C-alpha cells in the first residue's frame, strides 16, 4: 500500500497570502468610495491604471526571472501595492505619473530586491516619494471637493483629465482645481502651514480657516474619507489581518508629540487632533505602515516602529519641507527594521 507521507501539521488555517491581500483591498473600499464621493472619479481611474500596470510589470519581471507568475499573481500583493499608490496621488495626475510610479514600485522596489517578502522598503511609499521628488507639481495638484468645485466632473471627465489633462468639456486641470469662490484648492495642512509661514499664529490660522468655509469644507471631506479608512482598518484588526500594535502606536506617537508641543506653545503648533485627523495619517497607520514585509515582526518591535513613524511624521510636518510625511517616515523606519527586530526578540519560554 502506497501511503501518502506528509509532515505535520497536517491541518492548515486555510488563509493564504492572496486572501490576506484581498482582505486588505476590500478594507480599502469604504475609504475609496468616500474619496470618490468627495473628489470625483479620478482616484478610480488611477487605481485601474495602477492595477493594470502592476500586474503587467509583475508578470513580465517574473517571466524574466523564470518564476511561475500565475501563482505569484494570485497573491494579490502587486494589486494591493498599486491600489495604495493610486489612492495616495492626486486624482487627476497625468497617467504616466501612476504608470511610472507603479512600475518603479513593482520592478525596482519589490522585484529587484527578490520579490515578495524580500523588499526592504514599502513599495507604494518608495514609489510615492520617488514621484513626489521627481514630479512635485503633478504630485501636489489636489482637487477641491466636488460640491465646491467651480466645474463639476464625472467619470469620463476623469478619464479625459488623466490622459489628456483636459476634461471632456475642455476644462484644464487648473480650471478643474478652482473652487466656487475662485480659490485654488489647498489641503488644510497646506493652509495652516502657509498661515504659520505668513507669521500668523496657529489659532489665527485656524480662525482663518474657520472663517474660510472653503478650507473647512475640504477639511470635513478629508475627515470623512479618513473615517472610511479607519473603518476598513478596524475591520482588518478584527479579522486579525493586521495587529493593533503599529496603527495605535503610530497614532499615539504623533498624538503625543503634537500634544507636548501644543501644550508648550499653542500659538505655534497645531493641536494633536488636527494632526491626527488631517492628511493621510489614518490610511498610513492602518494600511501602509502595516505592510508586513517591510515592517517590524515582533510585537515590541512593532510598537517601536509605529511610535517612531508617528514622531517622524510630526517632525517632518512641523519642521520639514513637506506638508505631509507618511511616506518619508515609513521609509526611514523601514531601514531601521532589522535593528529593531534584532533588539526586540521576545523572551523564549524557559529562558530567564
Amino acid at each position, binding site marked *: 500500500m502506497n*501511503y*501518502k507521507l506528509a509532515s505535520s*501539521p497536517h*491541518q*492548515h488555517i486555510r*488563509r493564504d497570502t492572496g*486572501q490576506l491581500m484581498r482582505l486588505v483591498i476590500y478594507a480599502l473600499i469604504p475609504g475609496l468610495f468616500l474619496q470618490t464621493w468627495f473628489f470625483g472619479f479620478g482616484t478610480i481611474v488611477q487605481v485601474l491604471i495602477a492595477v493594470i500596470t502592476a500586474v503587467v510589470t509583475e508578470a513580465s519581471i517574473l517571466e524574466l526571472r523564470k518564476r511561475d507568475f500565475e501563482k505569484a499573481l494570485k497573491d494579490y500583493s502587486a494589486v494591493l501595492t498599486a491600489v495604495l499608490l493610486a489612492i495616495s496621488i492626486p486624482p487627476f495626475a497625468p497617467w504616466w505619473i501612476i504608470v511610472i510610479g507603479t512600475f518603479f514600485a513593482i520592478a525596482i522596489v519589490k522585484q529587484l530586491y527578490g520579490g515578495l517578502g524580500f523588499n526592504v522598503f514599502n513599495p507604494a511609499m518608495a514609489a510615492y516619494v520617488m514621484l513626489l521628488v521627481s514630479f512635485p507639481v503633478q504630485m501636489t495638484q489636489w482637487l477641491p471637493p466636488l460640491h465646491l468645485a467651480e466645474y463639476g466632473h464625472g467619470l469620463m471627465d476623469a478619464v479625459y483629465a488623466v490622459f489628456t489633462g483636459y476634461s471632456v468639456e475642455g476644462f484644464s486641470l487648473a480650471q478643474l482645481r478652482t473652487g466656487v469662490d475662485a480659490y485654488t484648492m489647498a489641503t488644510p495642512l497646506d493652509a495652516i502651514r502657509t498661515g504659520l509661514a505668513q507669521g500668523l499664529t496657529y489659532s489665527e490660522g485656524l480662525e482663518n480657516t474657520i472663517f474660510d468655509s472653503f478650507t473647512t469644507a475640504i477639511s470635513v471631506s478629508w475627515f470623512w474619507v479618513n473615517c472610511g479608512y479607519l473603518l476598513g482598518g478596524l475591520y482588518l484588526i478584527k479579522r486579525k489581518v493586521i495587529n493593533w500594535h503599529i496603527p495605535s502606536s503610530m497614532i499615539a506617537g504623533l498624538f503625543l508629540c503634537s500634544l507636548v508641543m501644543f501644550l508648550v506653545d499653542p500659538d505655534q503648533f497645531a493641536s494633536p487632533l488636527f494632526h491626527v485627523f488631517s492628511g493621510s495619517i489614518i490610511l498610513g497607520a492602518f494600511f501602509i505602515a502595516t505592510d508586513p514585509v517591510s515592517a517590524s515582526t515582533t510585537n515590541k518591535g512593532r510598537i517601536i516602529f509605529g511610535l517612531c513613524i508617528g514622531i517622524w511624521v510630526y517632525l517632518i510636518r512641523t519642521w520639514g519641507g513637506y506638508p505631509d510625511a507618511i511616506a518619508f517616515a515609513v521609509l526611514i523606519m523601514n531601514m531601521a527594521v532589522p535593528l529593531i527586530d534584532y533588539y526586540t526578540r521576545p523572551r523564549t519560554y524557559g529562558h530567564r
Partner: protein
Amino acid sequence: MQTDFEQVIDKLQSKQQWDFPGGVFPAQQKELSNQTQILTLPLAQRFFVPVKQHIGVEGHVIVVAGDKVLKGQALSKSMNDFAVPVHAPTSGTVIGVGPHESAHPSGLPELTVEIEPDGEDKWHELSPLQDYQNQSKMTVLAAICDAGISGMGGAGFPTHIKAAPKKEVEFLIINGVECEPYITSDDRLMREHAWQIRQGIDVLTHLLSPKKILIAIEDNKPEAIEAMQVACHENPQYMVCAIPTKYPAGGEKQLIQVLTNREVPKQGLPGDVGVIMHNVGTCYAIADAVFSGKPLTQRVVTVSGHAVNKPGNVWALVGTPIEHLLTHAEYQGAKQPQPKVIMGGPMMGFTVTSNQVPVVKITNCLLLPTANEVADTDNEQACIRCGMCADACPASLLPQQLFWHSKAKELEKAQEYNLFDCIECGACAYVCPSEIPLVHYYRIAKAEIRIEQDEKQKADKARERFESRSARLVKEQEARDEKHRKAAEARKQAMESNGNGAKDKIAAALARAKAKKRQANESVDNQDPPIGSIAQQPSTTAADPSANTSSNERVAAAIARAKAKRAAQTQAQAKATGDAGSSDEHGTEIESAANESTTQPVDDTPIQASENPVVAGPIKTNEKRANEKLEPVSENALTTGTAKPLPVALAESLSVEPAIAVEAEQKPPITELKVTKPRVTKARVSKVITTEEKVSPASSGESLTDKQIDDASKKVKVTAAVAKAKAKRAALQKAKAEDETVDVPLTENKEEQQLDAKKRRIATAVAKAKAKKAAQTANTNNKDES
C-alpha cells in the same frame, strides 16, 4: 520569581488560570468520535509488538520463534532503568522476532515480536499488588515498570522514572487536556473510567506525595470534567481544573504555565519547578497494573476523520496492525485522493508508511482525513514576514527567523534563536499564510545540528585519544629510561659494594655486558611477564653451575615456552577472527595450553629455585625491576583490587626461606589469578587491535611455563598449574568486563612482536644466567672474604 504555591491555589480556586502566549484554534472535530462508547474489537490475525515503544533503551527479548505465550506475558526484560518491557497482547505463538515497519514517521523497520493469536486470549498468571500503600515505594515502582507502562500522552517516557522524583513535588498534574483536534481517546476514557483513573492517581499520589493534585481538562469536554469531579470530589487534595480550549494547552510546558504560571527552565524538567505531570491514560494503566496486575497491553485509540464511516474509539491491543482498526471503522479509501493515515492528531501526528504498522503504547489516534479536511500543503510560497507565526508560537520563538536560518542552513544562527526550544506543536505552520511547512524545516535543521554535534563529539574523542596516547607513549619512554638508569645504578652499586678483587672486576664486566644486552633487548624485558622473569631467574641461575647439562634443559624449557606461546597465539587468532564464542571455550583452550606447557618441562628440570640461597642478591635487583615493571599492570588490575604488589608475593614465595615453600604452594594460584585476570581481560579488550592482541595470552601462557620451572616440586607445580588454569578460566569469564587500560601490554607486545621469540628468549636466558653466575661468584667471594 516563581509563583508560589498559595498564589497558584488561590487563583485556581477562583476558577481562573494563567495563559500561555500564542496558540491557535483549529476546528475541534471532536464530536465526530466522542459520541460513542469505546468499543472492543475482535482479535487481529497477527500482532506485531515492537520491543521499544518508549523513550529510552529497548528491553532484552526473552522469547524466540515458536514459543507459546499467554496474554500479558512479558516478551522482553528490562535490563536498564530506562527500559520497560513489552507484553504479549493476547495468547498465541511467537512466529518470529525480527524487523518490522515501525510506528514512526520514517517507518524504518525495528525489532518486533510477531505473534499469531490462538484465539483464546488467555491471561498469564496475574499478580496484583496487595495493599500498595503498605508496600515500599520501590515495590510499587517495580510493579509499574514491570507492567511496561510508559507515558501514554505521546512522548512515551518510562513512567516509573517520572514517578520517582528527585525533588519535592508541589503539584501532580494529571493531563486530560487533549488539545489536538479529532482525538477523543482521553475524553472517552475519562467519561467511562473516571474511577479507575482516580485509582491510578491515588497510586501516583502515594508515590510522589505532592501537595496538590490538579486534574486539567479542556473546557470543551464538560462530560469528562464532570466524571472526574465525581470521581475525585471527596478528596480535597484533588482539584479538577477546566482550562480554556486552545491549542497546544495540552503540551506539558504550556499546561504547567497555564496552571501554575511557572516555566520549566530551558534544558530542565518539570520537576525543577515542583511539578510532575502524568497523562490520564497512564493513570488508568497504573491502576490496571497495581490493582489487577495487568500489564499494559491495550489502549484507547480514536479512529476518526471523514474518510471512515464509523469514527469512534476502540480498545486496541498493543501490536494490532492499523489495518485491523481501519477495517472495523469502515475506512473508505476512495474518499481520499491518495491513501493517507495519520497516527496522532492533525497538528503533531505523523503519516504512517503502511497499513501493517502496529498500534503502540503512544498511539492515541488514527486520523483518516478527506482532501477537504486536510489539504496537502505542497503549495509553499514566499514568506511575507507577516509575523503570524510569532503570534501563534506558544514558546515565544520567532518562527520566521528560525525559518530563514534553517532554510539557509545557518544552523548556529538558528540555535541562537533557540531552535531547540521549539516543541514542534505546528501552530506556526498552521497559521502561515504562505503555507510554509515551518516545522519540517525545523526538524531538518535539528537533525542536522544533532548529526553535526555527534560528529564533532566523535572527532573530539578521537583527538583526545590520540593526544592521551602520545602523552602516554612519551611518559612510558621516560619511565623506561628512568628504570634502566636506576637498574644500572643499582648494579653499579652492588658491584662496588661487592669488593675490588679481580674476580669482582670480571663479574662487574659481565654484569655490565649483561646490562647492556638487557638494555638492547629492553623490549624483551618489558614484555617479559614479571612472574616469568623472576621465575626465570632462579631457574637459570640454578642451572648455570652445571651449565653444560642444563643448557639442554634450558633449550627444552624455551621450546616449551614457545609451544605454549604458539598455542596461545593460535587461540588468540581464533579469537581475533571474530568468533563471539562463549568465554568457556576460550577458557578450556587456554587451560589446555597452560597444562601442556606446565607439564612438559617439568620432567627434565629437577632444579629448585629455593635451593639457591646465593641468588638472593641478584633477585633483589630483579625483584625491584620486576616491581617497577609490573606496577602499571597491577594498576590495570583494578577489578581484582590487588593490594599487595604481585612480584613481592612471588618473590617471597621464591626467596630462600624454606617456610615459604608452603606458602608458595598456596599462593601461586591466588597471585596467578590476580595476574592473569587483567591480562586476559586485556586480551579481550584488545580484540579490536588484532595485531597486538595475539601476544597477551601468549605471554601469560609463557609465564606459566617459566613459573613452573622454579617450583619446588612436581606436585606443587601441578597444583599450581591447575589452580592457575582455574583462575584463568574464572578470569576469562569475567573478561567481558571492560578494562580499557590496555596500554602497557599493547606497547610491549608491539615491540615483542618484532623479535623472534625463541631466539630472543634463549639469548636472554643465557645472558641472565651469565650475569647471575658472575654475581653469584662475586657474592661467594664476598662471603669468603668476610
